[in-house]
């Protein structure tokens, strides 16, 4: 059976499971309410000068990206190990579809969480960003750094999921990995000012994405002038996609047994 056709088949079914039969649309209702609350909140606090307007836009963008990535992470981390836990994986592995096609299809389908969250968040970013300016630059950050991180999180979590014995292990490891990658962003300025610190900031895809967000949205640098911060998120995304496409040949029904 044609690989591309198999992948498309898996993507179609996974998307239907999440967005027609599953809770996807209702989770997006929740996202819309959360973004509405934050948008109104930052608009009001900005109006009474308690919050810088651009910091308000940044809060909204961080929330949108954070929610989108969280959905991608959980969806992808559950994709294989969840089927293993629910005893539905075996019947999939028994079909003639190559295991790599199953994994790739599930990873691509997880991107739908990001895409829909982005679509829901776009009107908010445009509306809130209009006042202080830079709405399109903010949107460019969400679309580029956000997408790169979604691919990195999604494909990375699927890789973990394919090898984890249980769903709990898969979700735990995926969250742990994200936590570790967030650490450089918490380092004090004195540490990150030096060449080693700067290298860490730029090499870590999560921190690098946040740096891009802060510089463009908060500091109002142009997106084009800060585009080099996209390097590590994009490279990280390319590496995990290659790892899924090339590295996953067989999915085991009981990993490590």
């Amino acid at each position, binding site marked *: 059976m044609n690989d591309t056709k198999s992948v498309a088949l898996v993507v179609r079914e996974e998307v239907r499971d999440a967005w027609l039969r599953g809770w996807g649309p209702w989770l*997006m*209702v929740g996202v*819309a309410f959360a973004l509405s609350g934050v948008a109104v909140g930052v608009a009001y606090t900005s*109006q009474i000068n308690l919050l810088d307007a651009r910091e308000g836009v940044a809060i909204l963008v961080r929330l949108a990206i954070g929610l989108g990535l969280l959905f991608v992470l959980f969806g992808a981390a559950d994709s294989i190990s969840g089927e293993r836990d629910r005893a539905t994986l075996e019947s999939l592995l028994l079909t003639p579809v190559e295991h790599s096609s199953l994994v790739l299809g599930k990873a691509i389908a997880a991107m739908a969480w990001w895409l829909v969250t982005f679509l829901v968040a776009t*009107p*908010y970013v445009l509306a809130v960003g209009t006042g202080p300016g830079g709405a399109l630059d903010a949107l460019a950050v969400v679309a580029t750094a956000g997408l790169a991180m979604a691919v990195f999180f999604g494909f990375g979590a699927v890789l973990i999921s394919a090898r984890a014995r249980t769903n709990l292990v898969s979700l735990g490891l995926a969250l742990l990995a994200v936590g570790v990658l967030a650490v450089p962003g918490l380092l004090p300025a004195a540490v990150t000012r030096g060449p080693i610190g700067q290298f860490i900031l730029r090499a870590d895809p999560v921190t690098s994405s946040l740096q891009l967000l802060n510089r463009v949205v908060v*500091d109002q640098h142009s997106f084009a002038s800060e585009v080099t911060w996209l390097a590590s998120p994009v490279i990280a995304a390319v590496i995990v996609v290659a790892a899924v496409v090339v590295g996953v040949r067989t999915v085991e029904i009981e990993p490590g047994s």
Partner: protein
Amino acid sequence: MRRMLLLTALCVLGAVTVALPVSAQEGPVVAVDQESVDTVIGTETVMMVEISNSGTAPTGPLVAHLLVVDPAGGGSADAEDWTSELNRPLDSLAPGEAHTIEWDVAPIMAGDYRVLISVVPIDGGPPSVSPQIRFTVSQPDALVSGATLPVAIAVPVIAIGAALVTRRIERTVAHRPT
């Protein structure tokens, strides 16, 4: 009390700077790359500060310190609110040697400020002060709540509508006979 001390320090530093012509000044000379900056609250400005040794002996270890003055507000502003690094230690400068440091500042209140960099030799000796930079800080534009509110109402309504439609589509497709 803190404001008084700061003003006193500024006066002393200013007096020293005025009293000593640059050519005759012993120890470090501090220069900045800007005379005035127009900015808005929260925006980061990078100042290039050059500290050079115009004397004939090494300066010894130095500390550069950021000072922010609010003349209209009666004196000092809290420089800690402008930068995360109020003090920057420097190695000793040999005669004729210069060192440039980047100083990121982001004002948090609107107003008309003067920013100065003072450089103090740790082992003693006269302090030096840079020329002042005039910072005119204005309020940023507020968020346009007029656009935010309709979006904040419309998007959840549309999302609920879309969720109901997908549920209906799923039922329709599922019950469609072959």
